[in-house]
């Protein structure tokens, strides 16, 4: 009976693994994305259900112990509460806060991995004398702890609760190495200690790894958060895989590896888009740390400021317009007025498109989600490589709350911290309208020469209010172009 069930369980795990692969695969195109999500849900439900049933089937085999009803009760309560909280978060979160949500969810996986590791050690039946098993536990706890605090710091930075500027301690690489060494030393102590006494070194590993995770993410500038978030996504996968090793569970291993490697690729794709090295993101701070002098510099030169009415004039006369959204649009929740503006322009016969930089916003694909929320047809939305050659034939480019991704010094100024990052070459258009809250430097702390170009006009103010004003001004003009 039990053997049969064990086979059923293995087959169910296999099915769940395949469903997860299908899920990731489905998420690669718009047409199959929803099916992909459903596959993931089914896979997860299957995995949880089978494991829970196994509690009942296997219970007697492990000898007299916990009453099943109690285990089931505890399980049911934990799952019910967790699901309710998760559903509430998912329903309440504003699309503009997606990056924060994803970051905090990563931290949950990290924390869960730490707890599972410690619980596994404390489990009475655990055979801690097995060195391999011991190492597996330590690795799981280590990755989990790094993921946990790293994600919490990322959450804080995205929230704005922590400053976006990288914290670059001198000798931070040495510090990281020392912390790693401390973890190795604790592991040795842990492996030699008899069963319950190993808890102390294990907690030391968890503690040191937590500091390490926080320190690694603190050293990364806010502008690179999209990469960090997807890197943490990868870590959360590795944490799950490590748990699989310690529990001898192939489903956890497979699923964790899937998530881990897919997250790593996503980070790699991001890094390539920003001309960054992946290693510098993993180890915190860019290989060559920007010298302190490259902080926000005083703005140089005069800028041309325009009113909403003047910009409406420009737009009314334009035949082709490209909108470049950035984090400022997300912060101001301006995606709906922006959609209204572009619809109005389209009705006048103007060709309108959106240009999305791979790292616009604070999360990969962040802008796409916001535009989708405002029901912008995704066929109007173009990627950087597709649209860069078109700027020169464009009459007006509207940059809404974007800064570093349209900064020409990335191409021209070798001393700029963002030098070498491909950017949207908006300055090639006939006119550029830059909407900003103020003349402050962007998230990367770099001044933007685009503002001082002859063909650039600045439109200051909150993006939502400004775009709404533009819509009104354009409507007042009436007629078609």
């Amino acid at each position, binding site marked *: 009976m039990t053997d049969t069930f064990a086979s059923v369980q293995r087959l169910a795990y296999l099915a769940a693994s395949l469903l*997860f692969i299908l899920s990731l695969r489905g*998420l*690669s*195109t718009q047409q199959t*994305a*929803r099916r992909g*999500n459903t596959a993931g849900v089914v*896979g*997860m439900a299957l995995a*949880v259900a089978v494991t829970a049933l*196994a509690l009942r089937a296997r219970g007697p085999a*492990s000898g007299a*112990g*916990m009453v099943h009803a109690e285990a089931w009760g*505890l*399980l049911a309560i*934990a*799952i019910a509460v*967790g699901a309710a*909280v*998760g*559903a509430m*978060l*998912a329903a309440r979160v504003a699309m503009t806060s*997606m990056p924060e*949500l994803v970051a905090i*969810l990563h931290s949950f*996986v990290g*924390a*869960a991995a730490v*707890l*599972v590791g410690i619980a596994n050690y*404390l*489990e009475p039946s655990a055979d801690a004398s097995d060195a*391999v098993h011991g190492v597996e536990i330590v690795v799981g706890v280590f990755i989990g702890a790094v993921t946990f605090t790293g994600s919490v710091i990322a959450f804080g930075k995205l929230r704005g609760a922590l400053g976006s500027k990288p914290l670059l301690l001198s000798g931070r690489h040495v510090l990281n190495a020392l912390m790693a060494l401390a973890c190795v030393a604790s592991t040795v102590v842990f492996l030699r200690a008899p069963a319950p006494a190993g808890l102390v070194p294990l907690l030391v590993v968890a503690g040191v790894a937590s500091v390490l995770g926080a320190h690694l993410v603190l050293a990364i500038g806010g502008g690179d958060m999209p990469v960090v978030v997807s890197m943490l*996504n990868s870590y959360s996968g590795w*944490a*799950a*895989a490590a748990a699989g090793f310690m529990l001898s569970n192939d489903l956890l*291993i497979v*699923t*964790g*590896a*899937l*998530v*881990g*490697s*897919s997250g*790593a690729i996503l980070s790699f794709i991001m890094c390539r888009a920003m*001309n960054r090295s992946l*290693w510098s993101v993993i180890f915190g701070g860019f290989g060559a740390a920007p010298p302190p002098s490259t902080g926000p510099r005083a703005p140089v030169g005069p800028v041309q400021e325009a009113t909403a009415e003047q910009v409406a004039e420009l737009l009314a006369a334009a035949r082709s317009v490209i909108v470049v959204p950035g984090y400022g649009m997300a912060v101001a929740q301006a995606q709906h007025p922006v959609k209204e503006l572009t619809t109005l322009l389209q009705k006048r016969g103007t060709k309108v498109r959106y240009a999305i930089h791979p790292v616009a916003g604070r999360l990969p*694909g962040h802008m*796409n*989600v916001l535009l989708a929320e405002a029901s912008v047809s*995704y066929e109007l*939305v173009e*990627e950087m490589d597709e649209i860069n050659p078109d700027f020169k*034939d464009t009459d007006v480019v509207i940059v809404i709350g974007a800064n570093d991704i349209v900064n020409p010094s990335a*191409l021209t100024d070798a001393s700029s911290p963002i*030098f070498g990052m491909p950017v949207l070459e908006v300055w090639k258009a006939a006119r550029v309208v830059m909407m900003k809250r103020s003349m402050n430097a962007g998230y990367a702390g770099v001044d933007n020469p685009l503002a001082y170009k002859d063909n650039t006009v600045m439109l200051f103010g909150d993006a939502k209010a400004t775009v709404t004003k533009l819509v009104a001004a354009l409507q007042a003009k009436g007629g078609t172009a």
Partner: protein
Amino acid sequence: MRIGIPKEIHPGERRVAATPMTVARMRKLGLDVVVQAGAGEASDYGDGAYLETGATIAPDAASLWAQADLVLKVRPPEAIPEGELHEADLLKEGGALIGLVWPGQNQALVERLSLRRATVLAMDAVPRITRAQKMDALSAMANIVGYRSVIEGASHLGRFLGGQMTAAGRVAPAKVLVLGAGVAGLAAIACARSLGAVVRAFDTRPQVREQVESLGATFVEMPALESGEGEGGYAKEMSPAFIAAEQALIAQHTESSDVVVCTALVPGKVAPQLVTSGAVVSMQQGSVIVDLAAEQGGNCALTEKGRLVEKFGVKILGFTDLASRMSRQSSDLYATTVCNLLADVLEAGGVDIALDLEDEIHRGVVVLQDGKLLWPPPTRPRPRSAAPLAAAAAAPSTPVVARAPSRIGPLLGGLVAVALLAAGVVAGGEFVEHLTVFLLACVVGWHVIWNVNPALHTPLMSVTNAISGIILVGGILLMRTGSIGAATLLAAVAILIATINVAGGFLVTARMLRMFRR
């Protein structure tokens, strides 16, 4: 430094290399200027106008050349008709010269100038880069020539260019065909369009279609055999087979054209023959061909350099002095480009020429430096510009910054591989099985993600995030044994937070995906 402005001696040349306006600018730069009497007369600038700006007047060529340290000219120096003298020999020993020198075609002249230990800058060699546009004399002249070609053609055509509805009957607009859409061709198109003609244009470079169309002309498509885009935005020379096909295509269009403007030139080469005598025969009586390539042999087989001829009832204009026919305009623009170059090569704050051979412009224009031959400049890759006019819009090309391949990557990868192998050997058995599964799953994950549409990165991340909540299963497994103790309680907490992750991740993904719709 004293600048000399001689009177041009080439027959029919009416331009002058400096106008009172540019003389005033040079005076402001601290330069002395001496102008030969009557130098600007043909461009409607009397000696008085130069005097007012602070120049002095030299009575004749000999005294002018003797005084000047730097001579500004339009045409290359040539033999003075009366007497045995050559302008090159009049140049001061160690003096300087700026003008349209055409060093490629005038090697004997360059040698002669090098004997004078002269420094010579060629206006025709200004590189076609954005920064040098204000010094681009050839484009400035081509613009004038293109405009004038249509005016000349129209004046020899016995009808309106534009269409009209009059009480005396309806007039259809004339048809103008422009061969070659460089600066001159585009100027001709613009002029013909503004006079109301229907304009078609032909060019071997398909990239210029957009510019042709932006001026309101129709682009005549050449079946794609090879692109005519050569170095620096100029056209290149094509194969004989291509030219034959080209001639046939053009003949179809010349037949129905009232005015044909030929502007096709390949730098330093004989002009391609585009309009055959057969094509001329089939044209309507009274039609006009204006051949701007006459100087280099002409685009039309029947063109005679410098003359107006009538063949088979078609007037063929082979004038080579179109710029001089608008000498005031030409002088104004040419003098400005010369003055811009002069200002660029002057030492900062000083009055002497200081050439910086690292500078792309300086290196391009310098033919001789103190008698030493520096022409042609070493070729260097130029930023591509679709066509001469487009150079205005072309910004510096994007630098592609290659990152040195990281050495940490392979090193770390190697370390991980060795560590895993060692662990496998030590641990053996079950661990190796798990390792197999793990590595295979990594490879699958790696492949599944590559083709993700970037727009879906956020949903993908939130779904993988939900899936990583699979650690929930780990928590459940830990509840399988023992009474409720520390281990089970910790596991319960792990299950709780992992479930938040699972539910939150999947639900928010579903919510996002609902928004992605067409």
